[in-house]
Every structure is written in C-alpha cells, then in structure tokens.
C-alpha cells in the first residue's frame, strides 16, 4: 500500500491509499479522480493518463521506456517531468508520491 497524492491543475489535491501492484492510473480511475482519462485502459497507446511527477520523485521512479516517451510526444503539454500514470506501478517504495494532472488530457 502506498499513499499517492493527485493534484489537479487548479491545485486541488486528494490523497489515496493505493494497493501495491496497481498503477497510479488505476488508483485514480478506480477512485473517480477526475483529470485522468485513460482512454486506452493502460495499453500505453493514448497518452490520456498523462501526469507531471514532482522532480524529487521523478528521479526515484524507474526511467520511462521508449514507447512511453513516444506516447508522451503526443500528450497535452508534455514537460521534462511528464509520465504516463499507467506506467507507474505502485509499491511501498513510492509511498508518498505526488502527481499533478495537466489542465486537460485531450
């Protein structure tokens, strides 16, 4: 279990307990967190679960693979610290992770 904080683009935040093994995207979708669409359902095929990861956390996560970087090219306003939340798996190590959602996904 890990505490994951989701902050929307207006600054409103919600912290959830997400079970290990789920992805950060699934944690949001299962708990009706708005701002993460996940149209393709976690297939790394749509870039609608795009989040920004706070720098200190960004470097702690495993590096995004090439396919994820390719998808981030087509995300809404990608930045240096962009990730697809469907590619971040929850574990004890990321307890306390904070992600910020872009203004919109499409």
């Amino acid at each position, binding site marked *: 279990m890990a505490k994951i904080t989701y902050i929307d683009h207006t600054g409103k935040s919600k912290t959830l307990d997400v079970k290990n093994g789920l992805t950060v995207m699934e944690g949001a979708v299962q708990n009706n967190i708005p701002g993460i*669409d996940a*149209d*393709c*359902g976690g*297939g790394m*095929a*749509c*870039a*609608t679960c795009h989040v920004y990861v706070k720098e200190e956390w960004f470097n702690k996560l495993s590096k995004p693979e*090439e396919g994820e*970087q*390719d998808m981030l*090219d*087509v995300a*809404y*306003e*990608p*930045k*240096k610290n962009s990730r697809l939340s469907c590619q971040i798996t929850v574990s004890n190590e990321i307890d306390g992770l904070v992600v910020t959602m872009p203004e919109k996904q*499409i």
Partner: protein
Amino acid sequence: MIKTDAVIIGAGPAGLFAVHQLGIIGLKAEVIDNLDKIGGQCIELYPDKPIYDIPGIPKCTGETLAKKLIEQIKPFKTKIHLSERVQKIESEGNNWIVETNKGKKFISPNIVIAGGVGSFEPRKFSVKNYERFEDKYLFYYVKNKKIFKNKKIAIFGGGDSALDWALELSKISKVILIHRRSEFRGSKNTLKKIKKLSKSKKIIIKTSFQLESIEGEGKIQSINIKDEDGKIENLKVDNILGFFGLIMQLGPIAEWGLSLNKKHIPVNTENFETEKKGIFAIGDICEYPGKLKLILSGFHEAALAARGCFKRARPDEQYRFEFSTTSKSAHERLGVKKK
C-alpha cells in the same frame, strides 16, 4: 440517400465483425469511419504489436487481425466509407437518418455504434489563440504542398509525419524542425537525411523546444519557442505544421441524445441496444455490468446486436438460428461453392 439494413459507425474489429454477423443472416450494412484506413485502433495504435487473446489465433498483430477481418467480410461486398465522420443522427418514423461531415446521407432502421473511444483526430497545439491561424497558416496535415513554396515553415513533432514532411518541404521551402526532446521516434533513415541537410543549413533542427506563443495579426509573423529551462527564442516563420499524432475524441457521438457514462454508452446485454430503439453500441464504446474491453467481447456483442438488427430490418420475417457450417443460406451469402 443510401438505404441499408444497418449503418455501422466505426471500422474497427467490432464494426467489421458486425458486417459479418449481419451479412450471414442476410442483412446489408454500410460502414463509416473517420480514419483513412480500415481497422480502427488495431491499425492506428498498434499495427505491429502482437495480440495474444483472439480465440483460435495464438498470436497476431493488429494489422494482421484487421486484414483477416477484411478478408472474412469480403463476400458481403460491404461499402466502407473512409475519412468520413458521422455528424448527425435523426429519427424518421422507424428509421434513422445518418449524415456525415461530407454530406452523405443514409437511411436505415438500425445504427450500430462501434466507435471505440471516438474518432481519431489530430492532437492540436495548446498555445493561446492558435485557432485563429488554423487552416490558413497553421495545419495538422499537408493537403497541397504548393502553398508552402518559398515560405519559412516551423514543423513540430518527432514522428514519421514530422520527419517526412520536413524532408519533403525542405525542397521547396525553409524548414525548421522543432521537437520537445532530442530523440525522434520516426524512421532513423529519414532522420539521417535530415541531419545531413541540417549541416548545410537546409533544415534547422531545434530539439528540447516547444511552442510557447504565436505572434501576428491576421497572419503569422513569428513564433516563440521555449526550451526545458524556460529560455525563449523568437523565430520568424510564415507557417506552422504540427504533427503530434492522433488522439481519440468522442466528438459528435456526445450530441446524439444518448445517455453517456464517462464517454461510454450504456446498453442491455441481450442485444446491446441502447436506450434508443434501433441504435446499438458494441465494442469499447459500450458499457454494461462486467464489460471487458477486449476484442473478443466486441465480437460477441456484434453477433447479438446483428440479431437485434434483424428484428427491425425484417419485421415480418422470423429469425432462425443456424450454424455457418451447415446453413445453406449462409453458404449462399458467403459464396461457398457447392461440391
């Protein structure tokens, strides 16, 4: 006005198999899809990636599956209207009138929405006021490259479309290729050619930059691009091209008066009809308790929706359940030669 037994919206696996299931029980269909090719997400999102859960096919790519489905529906000679998006749906008596963005009209007692997560549309820029230049000085496609002759063009993107057009347009105009990171996902071969051209300043490459703003009244005068550290550079350009791939947008489906639940259309599980009689929804777009977004679920939904269509298309006939192995009428429809 094209008259048919069922209009299928979406030429992905669910829509294609719906053609088959309608055809085998003697119903005609017309298919409409916004993409310029057949296969839906299979062909647009993962043509080369393997699928492992199609019953009876241990492994096949998205492209192969699309090809096989096209082959399977060949006997029904179904017209597939590509690069057209359904804009409007209206009821007329027991029929539905379906109109596309190109003005084509269909009349049918049945509509099968097999639209996935909506239609594929180009991902657009997100800077302020970009819309005012759209289709005049700012584009997401190239229809007529002549309009770019002797112009200064900023091309944004890192995929094949961006690279191919940078190379092509560099022959007739000045090209600046701008991408948000230093790696390009497009063809290595094309990239090599572009890098070569950049040495002789025929193409300027700017990586780790994104569009910050567009300057100009009426037409584009210059653009500001921003790098990762926030440093801004001003570039004089006449045109902007953006190639950020396609994204799925629900689009006009939201305006057809169907109740939606988070971009999905609720259906019953008997024949996958929506709350509107004669409108069915199958595949990724439909929703019911236990729904799985698998291609195989789409096939099952297509089979049952086709039987639902039969009742409305042939109200005076009795539907008979038959097996394709033994049914004479199915064989005739499939064009199976008698031994």
